[in-house]
């Protein structure tokens, strides 16, 4: 039994399938994500595939600040990914909204909508940093059991929501 568990955990680490979603990014971080796939960085040697379908994917890589319109799409895609899954927010925008945080249409980062596992800062993030982020996410993903480990994430989400609800109080300019 333990052998099969270890085999499953090893396979999860060795075969992470990404889906990349752009939530209003300037495409700087997207280009860096794409650069990871090129022969210079070659993430396929880690088994990473950029699969375009959330139903096949393990890791959701999100760039860009999120706005109300594509927040619904982001939530939809996150829901369509089967467990166990992980979310990586790339770039300053994805982490916290970056320089656009106070804008009227910006929600201010991915974690306002879905629970995030790894934040990769940078503007844009370097490919090496992105790969490091994926490795960290894999560590979290490795032992995650479908359905059983989503409670803490949901609690995080609630905190994030409350932070967002109160953003007008923190707004500097109107």
């Amino acid at each position, binding site marked *: 039994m333990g052998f099969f568990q270890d*085999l*499953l955990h*090893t*396979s*999860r680490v*060795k*075969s992470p*399938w990404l889906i990349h979603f752009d939530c209003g990014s300037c495409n700087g971080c997207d280009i860096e994500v794409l650069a990871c796939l090129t*022969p210079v960085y*070659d993430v*396929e*040697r*880690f*088994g990473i*595939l*950029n*699969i*375009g*379908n959330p*139903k*096949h994917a*393990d890791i959701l890589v999100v760039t860009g600040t999120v706005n109300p319109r594509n927040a619904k799409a982001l939530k939809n895609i996150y829901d*369509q990914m*089967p*467990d*166990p899954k992980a979310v990586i927010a790339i770039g300053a925008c994805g982490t916290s909204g970056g320089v656009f945080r106070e804008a009227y249409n910006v929600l201010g980062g991915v974690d306002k909508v879905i629970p995030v596992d790894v934040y990769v800062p940078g503007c844009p993030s370097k490919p090496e940093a992105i790969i490091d982020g994926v490795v960290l996410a894999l560590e979290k993903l490795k032992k995650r059991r*479908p*359905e059983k480990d989503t409670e803490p994430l949901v609690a995080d989400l609630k905190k994030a929501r409350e932070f967002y609800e109160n953003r007008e109080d923190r707004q500097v300019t109107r």
Partner: protein
Amino acid sequence: MDFKTISFVILAIILAPLAGGLLAGIDRRLTAWFQGRFGPPILQPFYDVIKLLGKEPQVVNYWQIFCVHIYLIASILCVALFAMQADLLMIFFVMTIGAVFMVVGALATPSPYSQLGAQRELIQMLTYEPLLIIVFVGIYFVTGSFKIDDILAYERPIFLALPLLYLVLTFALTIKLRKSPFDISASHHAHQELVRGVLTEYSGPYLAILEIAHWYDIVLILAICSLFWSTSWIGLVILLAVTYMAEIIIDNVTPRMTWKWMLTYVWAVGISLSFFNMALLYAKSF
């Protein structure tokens, strides 16, 4: 059905997916080498499948699950029948059970990608099926039987009598292996385009089952290729290695073409090559 046959069948059923997975891994490694990078380890397909088996099942429709299992069972049955040295044409028809149910599973979901992918998969089936039947008829011409035990008993390698028909078989092989320029349905490389059509609505364990069934299919079609040089082991290995290498090279140098081009080109060239080969055979026998 003696003990030797039964043990051979069980061995075939157990080893076929392992061989198929290794071949898929070698494929990815070689492709990466052509593209100037390292590529994943050879055992990568097994990691993929095991990871998928450990994911939560998610379906749109329970009919999808039924179809996936029928596809797997039909593919396993084909390999078992081949190991039992049954009739080639019957094995072909049993293979169509799996192929049709894969399409039906994709058609069962109201998703634009899977509907489109299913129709393209049907066109793919339409393209290679007549060719496979023609190849089997050609083998019958040379060896006088459709049964595999009679074919294996033929003294000379069939490849020497039917070289052009082997080319026709490689067309069917390219389509079955989902390689360019004939990968109009669920291509290996372009995951994003048409979102891999037939496979869109499958996830987790069902995607793993589809992959394993595909491995069985790879082994079956390569086994049919191996019939063309069944007289010596070295010849067989060389033939299969050269064929597979050629498939990978062609995959990497050609783009994906339209289905209209594929249908007309494959039928025209395939049927002409077969008739030419048959004419050569008739001429030789005079």
